């Protein structure tokens, strides 16, 4: 049965989604989502372990060998993503039990869990597939379920946020489709490995260059790279807390992984970063994204929007690492992907707890929080410092890796932008801490106790981020393996 | 050229003419009710004659049966749609054109 693991990873969440709808019980639906995420985590751990030992795994759907059928490929480059997504799902499952019950009316809860299962399946499928068109299909599964979940937010702004994300996201997906079509016109195949093989040495093909442009612009929308990030703040800021916790940790990260997969193992680094100036454009947009995202975060007066804008900036850090196209850069990018996921998930989870207990996360309403919810506040401080990159938090380890990679290639302007971004992060995290710690709580405010399951999820993430900050050997090992797998193959 | 082919050609040409007439009518007629009359011609007379013309040219039974079924359904749905459209327009008070009115 272990040979079937790659498909089980995706099929189990897919199976749970219709069951959630069919059984229509809140508790059963939650249980199904928990079971689905635990199963995929188990599969992911198992797969990661096997890939580490024996190298890449391939799984042919319906026993049709690629390129005639669709194949799943598990290799060093996607095991970290699979682990990240399924771990985030487990945490979101633990967290969502109370959070969803409080934020949604009863009859919609099973639908939300069904959508969470679908989003999980979509993201996992997107990470594991070895076929470009199949990637498009999984991308649409995850996107459509995400739009639906965002629209379930409490305020009416959630509707417009979801609609705009739907329009921008669909344009992005259609761009991806155009790019895939152009690449298909040049090669006649959709399998990633086959594409890579047939594309070697056709750098001057103009249709292929256009394909690169379309695929990357389409993915950039999903990654929320700087000028295409407009959908992100409202989408993350308005979604139900459990959803933003899960999606903020995974959505853009998986898109970045797909970007790397296309850049290094399909089109090839020599075309993307040699013949075409993707590296320079990537670095430029990364810098702009870091500065614009961090600056915008400083001016928000809603905690969830602060966090969402900071995500735009963090995507910039990761893109900068990838755009270096060096082993150190890609490894740093993966490391930052992992660290930032953990940190940002923790922060959105904290925002959800505050929303539940205070009814609002506008900065003005957070006054005196440090005394009313000391433990939650402490978690926020640790995770917030992780966002800034203060040692010994997770953010420090990954930013250090990125800085080393930048110095290695003498990219000083990017380095300056990153430092400025970190300083701005200090400002926006500091603003929240200032309000929460130094301002007086409103009269008659009692200490508040958040639900235990939510606290457990938050502290798991916070402690994990502290642990990774002190001993980064596990994520660093995964990131190095990923970089090696990506750069080792696509050299041609 | 056999008689059947000639006949089929005549039917096809007549059908095409009916469709064309319908199209011209859509553009030239002054109000909704007369235009819907023109539109009705395209899918009853036009499509009907063309299908009959094609029916004379088929070489296998199953194609002929299919064409006949299509003909039957067109005969059933086309007039119904036109009828209901005209009713709806009258219900909503779409004005009728009379001699001397301005064209809409």
């Amino acid at each position: 049965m272990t040979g079937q693991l790659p498909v089980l990873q995706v099929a189990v969440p897919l199976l749970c989604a219709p069951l959630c709808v069919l059984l229509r019980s809140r508790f059963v639906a939650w249980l199904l989502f928990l079971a689905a995420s635990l199963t995929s985590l188990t599969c992911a751990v198992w797969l990661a372990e096997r890939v580490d030992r024996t190298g890449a795994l391939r799984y042919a759907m319906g026993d049709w060998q690629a390129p005639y059928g669709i194949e799943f490929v598990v290799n060093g480059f996607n095991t970290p993503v699979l682990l990240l997504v399924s771990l985030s799902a487990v945490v979101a499952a633990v967290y969502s039990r109370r959070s969803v019950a409080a934020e949604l009316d009863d009859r919609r809860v099973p639908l939300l869990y069904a959508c969470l299962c679908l989003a999980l399946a979509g993201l996992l499928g997107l990470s594991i597939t070895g076929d470009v068109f199949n990637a498009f299909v999984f991308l649409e599964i995850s996107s459509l379920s995400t739009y639906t979940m965002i629209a379930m937010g409490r305020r009416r702004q959630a509707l417009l946020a979801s609609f705009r994300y739907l329009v921008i996201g669909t344009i992005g997906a259609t761009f991806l489709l155009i790019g895939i079509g152009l690449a298909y016109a040049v090669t006649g195949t959709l399998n990633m490995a086959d594409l890579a093989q047939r594309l070697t040495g056709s750098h001057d093909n103009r249709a292929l260059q256009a394909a690169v442009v379309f695929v990357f612009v389409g993915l950039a929308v999903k990654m929320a790279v700087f000028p295409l990030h407009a959908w992100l703040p409202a989408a993350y800021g308005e979604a139900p807390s459990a959803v933003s916790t899960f999606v903020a940790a995974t959505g853009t990260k998986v898109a970045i992984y797909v970007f790397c997969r296309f850049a290094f193992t399909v089109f090839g680094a020599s075309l993307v970063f040699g013949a075409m100036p993707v590296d320079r454009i990537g670095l430029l947009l990364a810098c702009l994204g870091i500065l614009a995202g961090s600056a915008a975060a400083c001016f928000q007066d809603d905690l969830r929007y602060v966090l969402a804008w900071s995500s735009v900036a963090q995507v910039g850090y990761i893109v900068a690492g990838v755009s270096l196209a060096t082993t150190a850069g890609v490894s740093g990018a993966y490391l930052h992907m992992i660290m930032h996921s953990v940190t940002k998930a923790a922060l959105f989870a904290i925002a959800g707890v505050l929303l539940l207990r205070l009814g609002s996360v506008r900065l003005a309403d957070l006054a005196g929080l440090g005394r009313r919810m000391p433990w939650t506040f402490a978690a926020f401080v640790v995770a917030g410092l992780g966002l800034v990159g203060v040692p010994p938090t997770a953010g420090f380890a990954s930013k250090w890796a990125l800085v080393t990679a930048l110095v290695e290639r003498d990219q000083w302007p990017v380095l300056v932008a990153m430092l400025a971004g970190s300083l701005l992060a200090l400002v926006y995290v500091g603003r929240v801490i200032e309000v929460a710690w130094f301002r007086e709580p409103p009269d008659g405010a009692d200490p508040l106790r958040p639900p235990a399951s939510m606290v457990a999820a938050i502290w798991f993430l916070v402690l994990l981020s502290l642990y990774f900050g002190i001993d980064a050997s596990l994520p660093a090992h995964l990131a190095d393996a990923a970089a090696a797998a990506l750069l080792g193959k696509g050299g041609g | 050229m056999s008689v059947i082919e000639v006949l089929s050609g005549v039917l096809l040409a007549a059908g095409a003419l009916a469709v064309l007439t319908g199209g011209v009518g859509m553009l030239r007629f002054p109000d909704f009710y007369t235009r819907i009359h023109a539109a009705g011609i395209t899918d009853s007379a036009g499509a009907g004659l063309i299908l009959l013309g094609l029916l004379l040219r088929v070489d296998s039974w199953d194609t002929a049966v299919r064409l006949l079924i299509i003909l039957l359904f067109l005969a059933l749905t086309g007039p119904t749609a036109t009828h209901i459209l005209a009713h709806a327009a009258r219900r909503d008070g779409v004005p009728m054109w009379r001699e001397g009115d301005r064209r809409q």
Partner: protein
Amino acid sequence: MTTTFTLINVSLLAILTATAVTITRLRALYEATMLAALFSLVTACLFVLLDAVDVAFTEAAVGVGISTVLLLGVLALTRSSESVTPRRRRLPGAIAVLLVGGTLGYASLDLPEFGSADSPVQRHPVTEVYLHQSQEDIGIPNTVTSVLASYRGLDTLGELVVVFTAGLAVLSLLGPLARPERTRPTADFHLADYRVIRVVSGALMPFILLFALYVLFHGDYGPGGGFQAGVIFASGFVLYGLVFGLDRAQRVVPRAALWLLVSLGLLLYIGLGVTTMLLGGSFLDYDVLASDPDTGQHLGILVVETAIGITVASVMTTIFFGFAGRGVAR
């Protein structure tokens, strides 16, 4: 390329472009919707001309049928005319069009000739396998069906999941769970008051359902398949709902049954995959379903088409009920 082909092709393309331009310029949205339906119809004709009969069938069912009905339903619930697009909004669109158009034009310089038999697409070994080897592997004349349901069965599963997700979205946004804040007065008349339409649609109903079944099971030999059949099935219910009113339509297919069917089709498909795994094959490997691989493939494809049909029909009906039920006083 034969002259007739070019002639028809050029005129269809001209009609398409003209329609598209008109759609952009119309501010009256009912008219724009009808033109969009026309656009889909012409596209479907073009698909036939390009030898894609299955796609043409789907485009006709989706573009002319489902999309139009949904758009009209939404227009009835919202506002039917667009306000003037302010000048400042034009610039971003123009810039995007210039950039994308430039890139596409650049790409076309190295695209293989249209219709060439020597393009990479036609030369790739996949072509041979799908067109000829498939006759031995699967034994179904319609290669689109064999590629869809067997070679690339996972894509089709994904497609079904997307449809399912759309059903969930509409249920959550417009279903009985989300009560409307304002209600539309109940209509003072029904289409069923007209005897002609009552009789004709009553007479057509059985044929529509029969045709849906024909399309479902004939997909192996000709154009058609589960998706088209599902849409036709749903359009039967839509017609019934439009003519006889939503209440009677919901008495025929109660919501609870729809919930069940929506999930059932998807479960059937995934269950098929799980079954093949339990029988020792890989996911969606239909060979193991029967002692003879050919029979197994036939069986598998039949189950897949049925599963698609069930979910698509019930999701489309759910979506229609969602839109039509909105605003009706409850």
